[in-house]
């Protein structure tokens, strides 16, 4: 079959331009035997199928032809696929993802991940903080206990726990009121907190109880720290308002992990017993379990 120049132009333009190929569209089979034509024909068909897949949002359509237009379409496809993967990572909480290949979209995406990161950090901080005393709460404490205890067992490192309790807190509360009680909690926790290092945790354990966990610290060293902390409270004047202040004291129980303590709860129990002894034997003192 012979194609006139006009028919050629019509054929190629149909392949490139027509949204849908005409129902009766055929190409002369003998023409397809010409390798150069076959190449062009395949190229145009790949272009049609890939661009149409992309316009539908189908990112699974792969073609293997090369050349200017197909390569550009493939680059777009690959970008969108990579972006899909990155978005999944973000959904999994990986906010370090950044995009640098999609113009304005990159800026928007990056702004989103930065904001998500900041927001998550803020929320995590809030979720782990005691609202009154602004020190770590029980939830943060438990997470810390799990990790640090495992670490101490694995590396055969010392591990100590101090529990502090404010002496006669209930009567302070009853005598001066809840606001005064709150002021005492804030002041006392602030003073105790200063005695600990960045890799310890000092947290609100319950009502007027505070717990410090000291990884890598032996009982003897922990005792010194607890004693210093106790003394720092004893010597302080706690202001309740513009005119009044009171003095309070704390008792503390300490213990360290021994060979047969297989859970951190075992260490807490010993510290708790030591605290009980401190209370029984006159308060304002540190006892070791």
């Amino acid at each position, binding site marked *: 079959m012979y194609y006139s120049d006009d028919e050629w132009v019509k054929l190629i333009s149909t392949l490139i331009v027509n949204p849908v190929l005409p129902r009766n569209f055929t190409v002369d089979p003998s023409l397809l035997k010409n390798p150069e034509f076959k190449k062009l024909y395949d190229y145009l068909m790949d272009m049609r199928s890939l661009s149409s897949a992309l316009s539908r949002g189908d990112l699974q359509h*792969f073609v*293997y032809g*090369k*050349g200017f237009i*197909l*390569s*550009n379409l*493939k*680059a777009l496809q*690959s970008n969108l*696929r*990579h972006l*899909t*993967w990155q978005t999944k*990572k973000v959904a*999994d909480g*990986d906010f*370090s993802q950044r995009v640098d290949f999609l113009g304005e979209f990159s800026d928007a995406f990056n702004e989103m991940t930065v904001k998500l990161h900041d927001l998550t950090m803020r929320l995590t901080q809030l979720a782990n903080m005691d609202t009154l005393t602004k020190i770590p709460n029980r939830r943060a404490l438990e997470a810390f206990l799990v990790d640090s205890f495992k670490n101490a067992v694995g590396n055969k490192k010392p591990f100590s726990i101090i529990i502090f309790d404010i002496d006669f807190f209930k009567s302070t509360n009853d005598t001066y009121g809840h606001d005064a009680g709150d002021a005492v909690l804030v002041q006392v926790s602030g003073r105790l907190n200063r005695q600990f290092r960045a890799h310890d945790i000092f947290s609100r354990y319950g009502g007027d109880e505070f717990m410090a966990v000291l990884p890598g610290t032996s009982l003897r060293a922990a005792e010194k720290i607890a004693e210093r902390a106790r003394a720092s409270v004893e010597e302080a004047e706690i202001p309740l308002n513009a005119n009044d202040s009171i003095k309070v004291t704390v008792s503390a129980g300490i213990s360290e992990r021994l060979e047969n303590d297989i859970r951190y709860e075992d260490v807490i129990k010993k510290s708790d017993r030591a605290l009980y002894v401190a209370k029984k034997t006159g308060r304002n003192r540190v006892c070791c379990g």
Partner: protein
Amino acid sequence: MRRYEFNWDLIGDIDLGRPNLGKEVDLELYRLMQFTLRDVIEQTYSTEEADRLFREAGKVAGKVFYEKYINPVSSVEEFVSKTQKVLKEKKLGILRVEEAMLEQGKILLTVDEDLDCSGLPELDYETCIYDEGFISSLFEGFTKSEWDAREIDCWCTGARTCRFQVTERAKA
């Protein structure tokens, strides 16, 4: 007794040895080395054998590279992000993930500005055979099981992009 079994000592102390010229070398000359070696191996053996040897060499490189620059990593996320970071820092290429189904043993990667083939004319065959070995070894290092990497597509759009299908042999 082997003379050339690879270890990093063979490469020597580059900082000490090139106080004036430094670590960098013209990429053209790196490729000159690769392509002439390939030429000679093909002439001596065959095209298939040249490809096989290049892939094997890439595998050895990926193995020692993983140990030196990627290990230790504790999660897939860390493995991917660390690999991306190191490959970019070392100017080997820009690695991106299109699909990662590690459990099913199927990964689709692209590498932009690849060390071995960026800027090459568009060929009818995929040429990054050394990279195939290299990439499969990175996954072997991380998972401790056998992987194959195949360059399934390679296209020029300014920065040449290579697309690699990486599959776990046991799950292929």
